[in-house]
C-alpha cells in the first residue's frame, strides 16, 4: 500500500512522552508527504494533542523521546516560534485574534514591519494580505476590523496568518469546530488550494464525514499508540469507528443495576439552552428523565451541547423549558435556585470554575455550605473543622490539614475536594461534568465507586464525560447528544462506543447534507 508513496516531508519516529507517570504516547510513528492532507484521529485522551504539541514545539525537544525529521534531516524545536521558522505552521482550535486590529494587521501579527525595520507599512500590509486572500480564494477585506468578522472568517484569518510564513507543513486542530456547513465548504476550498501548492497538512478532527471528504490518509491513535493507518482507497466510516473504539485496557467499573420502579429525581422537558457567548452550539428541545438512584450519561463530542444541558439545568446559563426535581416543578434562574431545589453541579474545569485558590482546603469545602455551621450568624470554628475533617475522610482527600493550600494538591485530591463540597448539602440530583478529567487512575476508580455509592443512596446522577468507555461502563443509560439535540438513547448492554460514534456521525452527515443543499 505504500510502494508508490513519495518520501515523507515531515516525519516523527518512535515518539514517546509521559506526564508524571502517565504514558501519553508510547512510540508513535507519523509522517506526512508534500501535497497531502493527513487526518489524525482518535478519542479524547488518545494522544492526538500531545503529538501535535510535540510536532509544533509546544513540548520542546528534550521533553520527549523519539526523533522528528523535516526533509530527511533531524530537527528539534525548542518552541512554537522555532517550529514556525522551520516551516512548520499550526492553526489552533481556539480562535486567537487581536480584535481591535485590522485583518491585515492580524495576518501579519508580530511581523508588521515586514522585515524592513521599525515602521509599519499599513498599505503594504493590506496589499500583501489581499494577495494571500486572493491566492487562497478567501473573500475578506484586509482593512476590516477583526471585531466585525464572524468566527468562521476569524478562523480563515488565523490560517492566513500561518500561511504568511509559507509553511511547508501546516497543522490544523479541529478547524471546523465553530463552522457551519457552508463555511466548512469554503475552508475545504482553501485547503485544496494549499494542497495543490504542495503544502503537507495534518488535519486533526473528530468528524468522520470531513475525513472522508478531504483527507488522503488517516492515522488513528488509541491509548498513545497508532491503532491503524489507512489510505484513502480504504477509507470507510465503519473502519474508523471500529479502530477508534476498539478494546482498550480493560477498566473495571463497579457493578450497579439500574433502579426499577424508583421515583423520578430529575425530569427535564423541552429544555433549550443558549450557547455560551460566541459559541454556535447551545442545546434545544432536550427531554430527559433521571430516576432516583439512576446513573445517566450524556454522550457527545466537544461542542455538542452536552455541557450546556448541565449548565442550563443548573441555572448557569439562561434556559427555557420545564425542570422538575422529585416531581416538583422548579423555577431555576440561577445556581442559587438550583441548589435550593436540591441540584448540585461539579464543573469541568477545576482551575477556572471549581477551586478558590485564595482559600485553604477547609474553606473550599464549606464555601456555600456554611448555613448549618452557624451560631448567631458566626461560623463555629470547631464545628466547621470537624465537619471538614469528616468530609475529607469520607472522600479520602489527602491534605496535610484543613488549613493547607489547595494549590499543591494533586488533580485527584482537588477533584475529591470539590466532590466533598457538592456533597455537603446532600443533593437529590448531581450533575457531573467530566468528573475524572485530569485525575490519576486510583482516584478515577474512587470516583467510580463514589458515583455508584451515591446512586445506591438514591441520588439521581447525570454525567458528561468525553471518554466513552468510561461513560458506557459507568452509566445505566446513555443519551447521545449531537448539535444540541438528543439523537440516540440506549441502556446498559444495548450498545458501546461504536453506537455513540455511529449516531453522532449520522447526525453530522445529515447536517452536512442539509447545509450543502442549502448552499447549492
Amino acid at each position, binding site marked *: 500500500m505504500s510502494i508508490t508513496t513519495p518520501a515523507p516531508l515531515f516525519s516523527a519516529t518512535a515518539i514517546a512522552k509521559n506526564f508524571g507517570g502517565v504514558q501519553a504516547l508510547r512510540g508513535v510513528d507519523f509522517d506526512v508527504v508534500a501535497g497531502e492532507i493527513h487526518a489524525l484521529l482518535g478519542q479524547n485522551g488518545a494522544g492526538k494533542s500531545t503529538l501535535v504539541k510535540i510536532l509544533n514545539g509546544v513540548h520542546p525537544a528534550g521533553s520527549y523521546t523519539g526523533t522528528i525529521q523535516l526533509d530527511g534531516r533531524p530537527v528539534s524545536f525548542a518552541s512554537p516560534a522555532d517550529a514556525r521558522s522551520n516551516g512548520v505552521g499550526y492553526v489552533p482550535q481556539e480562535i486567537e485574534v487581536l480584535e481591535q486590529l485590522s485583518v491585515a494587521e492580524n495576518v501579519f501579527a508580530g511581523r508588521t514591519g515586514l522585515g524592513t525595520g521599525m515602521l509599519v507599512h499599513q498599505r503594504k500590509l493590506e496589499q500583501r494580505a489581499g494577495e494571500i486572500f486572493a491566492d487562497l480564494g478567501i473573500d475578506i477585506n484586509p482593512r476590516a476590523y477583526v471585531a466585525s468578522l464572524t468566527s468562521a472568517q476569524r478562523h480563515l484569518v488565523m490560517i492566513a496568518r500561518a500561511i504568511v510564513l509559507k509553511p511547508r507543513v501546516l497543522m490544523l486542530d479541529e478547524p471546523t469546530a465553530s463552522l457551519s456547513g457552508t463555511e466548512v465548504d469554503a475552508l475545504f476550498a482553501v485547503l485544496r488550494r494549499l494542497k495543490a501548492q504542495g503544502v503537507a497538512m495534518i488535519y486533526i478532527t473528530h468528524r468522520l464525514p470531513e475525513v472522508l471528504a478531504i483527507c488522503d490518509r488517516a492515522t488513528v491513535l488509541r491509548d498513545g499508540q497508532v491503532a491503524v493507518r489507512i489510505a484513502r482507497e480504504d477509507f470507510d466510516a465503519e473502519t474508523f469507528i471500529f479502530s477508534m473504539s476498539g478494546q482498550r485496557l480493560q477498566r473495571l467499573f463497579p457493578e450497579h443495576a439500574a433502579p426499577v420502579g424508583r421515583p423520578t429525581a430529575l425530569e427535564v422537558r423541552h429544555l433549550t439552552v443558549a450557547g455560551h457567548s460566541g459559541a454556535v452550539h447551545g442545546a434545544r428541545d432536550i427531554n430527559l428523565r433521571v430516576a432516583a438512584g439512576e446513573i445517566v450519561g450524556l454522550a457527545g463530542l466537544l461542542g455538542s451541547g452536552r455541557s450546556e444541558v448541565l449548565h442550563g439545568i443548573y441555572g448557569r446559563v439562561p434556559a427555557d423549558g420545564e425542570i422538575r426535581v422529585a416531581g416538583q416543578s422548579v423555577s431555576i434562574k*440561577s445556581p442559587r435556585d438550583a441548589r435550593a431545589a436540591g441540584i448540585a453541579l461539579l464543573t469541568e474545569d477545576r482551575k477556572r*470554575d471549581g477551586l478558590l485558590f*485564595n*482559600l485553604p482546603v477547609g474553606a473550599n469545602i464549606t*464555601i*456555600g455550605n456554611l448555613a448549618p455551621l452557624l451560631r448567631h450568624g458566626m461560623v463555629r470554628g470547631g464545628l466547621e473543622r470537624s465537619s471538614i475533617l469528616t468530609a475529607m475522610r469520607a472522600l479520602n482527600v489527602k491534605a496535610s490539614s484543613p488549613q493547607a*493550600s489547595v494549590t499543591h494538591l494533586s488533580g485527584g485530591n482537588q477533584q475529591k475536594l470539590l466532590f466533598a463540597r457538592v456533597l455537603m448539602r446532600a443533593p437529590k440530583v448531581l450533575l457531573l461534568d467530566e468528573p475524572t478529567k485530569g485525575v490519576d487512575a486510583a482516584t478515577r476508580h474512587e470516583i467510580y465507586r463514589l458515583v455508584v455509592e451515591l446512586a445506591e443512596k438514591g441520588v439521581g446522577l447525570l454525567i458528561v464525560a468525553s471518554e466513552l468507555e468510561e461513560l458506557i461502563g459507568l452509566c445505566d443509560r446513555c443519551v447521545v447528544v449531537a448539535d444540541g439535540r438528543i439523537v440516540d438513547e440506549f441502556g446498559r448492554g444495548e450498545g458501546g462506543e461504536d453506537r455513540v460514534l455511529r449516531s453522532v456521525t449520522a447526525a453530522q452527515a445529515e447536517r452536512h447534507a442539509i447545509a450543502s443543499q442549502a448552499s447549492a
Partner: protein
Amino acid sequence: MNSAAEVSASPRDARSFRRRLIGLIAVGEVGVLAAMALLIAFFWLLEPAFLSERNIRAILNVVSFVGIIAIGQTILLVAGEFDLSVGSVAGLSAVVAAKLMTAAALPVSVGILGGIGVGALIGLLNGLIVVRLGIPAFIQTLGMLFIGQGLIQVVTGGYPVYPLPEAINTIGGTDLAFGLGWSFAFFIVVALLADFVLRRTVLGRNMYATGGNKEVAHLVGINTSAYKIGAFITVGALSAIAGMFVMADLGSGGTSIGSGWELTVIAGVVVGGVSLFGGAGTVAGGVVGILMLKVVQSGLVVIGVNSNWQQIAVGVIMVMAVGLDIVRRRYFIAGA
C-alpha cells in the same frame, strides 16, 4: 473509601516548631508588624523625640481618619473591586453635612445622617455601575473622584463652611483618653468589628469567595453582585464618616478634606498585605499597613528629612512591601 484517615494528626516532632514559625511568618500582618517595629526603633535611635507622647498622638490621630476608610477599602478589595473616589466622597460628605447644619439650619443629627447618606449613595452608584454595567471599577471610581471634587466646589462655592454648630466642635474636641477622641474610638471599634466579620462570619467568607473567583462564588449560590455592591456602599459610608470626623477636628467644612487620600489608603492597605487582585488580606493587615505608612512619614519629618524625600520613601516602601509579600508567599506559603 475511608482508609488513610490521618488527615491532620501529624506527629508533633521537632519539625512542628519550625512549621509553627513558618505559619506565623505566613500570616500577613506579622511581617508588616516586624518591619514597623524595626522602623520605629530606627527613628527612635536617631531622634528619641519620635516616641514622644505628642508625636505618637499625632500619628494615631491621622491614622484614625485614613484608617476608617482603609477598613472599607480592605473589605472592597477582598470582594475583588476597589475605589479611587474615597477622598472625594469624604470631602463631599463633609461639606454636604456642614451645609445641612448651617445653610439649611437642620439639626446636627440630620446633617450627619445626610453626610453618611451621600457617601452610601455614591457607593451604591459606584457599585451598581461597576456590577450591572460592567464598567471597570478603576474607570468608574476615577470618574467619581472628579465628579466628587466638582460637587464639593458646587456645594460650597469654593469657600469653607464655617462656623459649624457647637456640637460638631465638641465631637472634634473631646479627649477620651491620651488626647485621642471620638474618631479614634470609632476607628478602633469598626476595625475590630470588620476584622471579626471578615474572619468569622458567612458574610466574610462569602466576600473572600467573591473576590477570589466570582464564577465559583456564583456557582456555589453566592449573590456576588450583592456582595460587591454592599462593599461599595460600606466604603462610601465609611469615607463619609471619616470626612466628617476631619471636619469636626478642623471645626470647619473645608473644601480640601479628603484630597489625595485615595492613593494613601490604597498604598497603606497594600503594604498591609491586602491583594489588589481580590480575595486576600485582612482588616488587621490593612490597618497595620496604614499605620506603618504614617509611621514612616512622621519619622522622616521628625528626623528632619526634606519633604520631597518623604514622598519618595512612601513610594519605595509600598513597592518593597508588595515585593516582600510576593517573596513571602512564594517561599513560606508555597514551600511550607
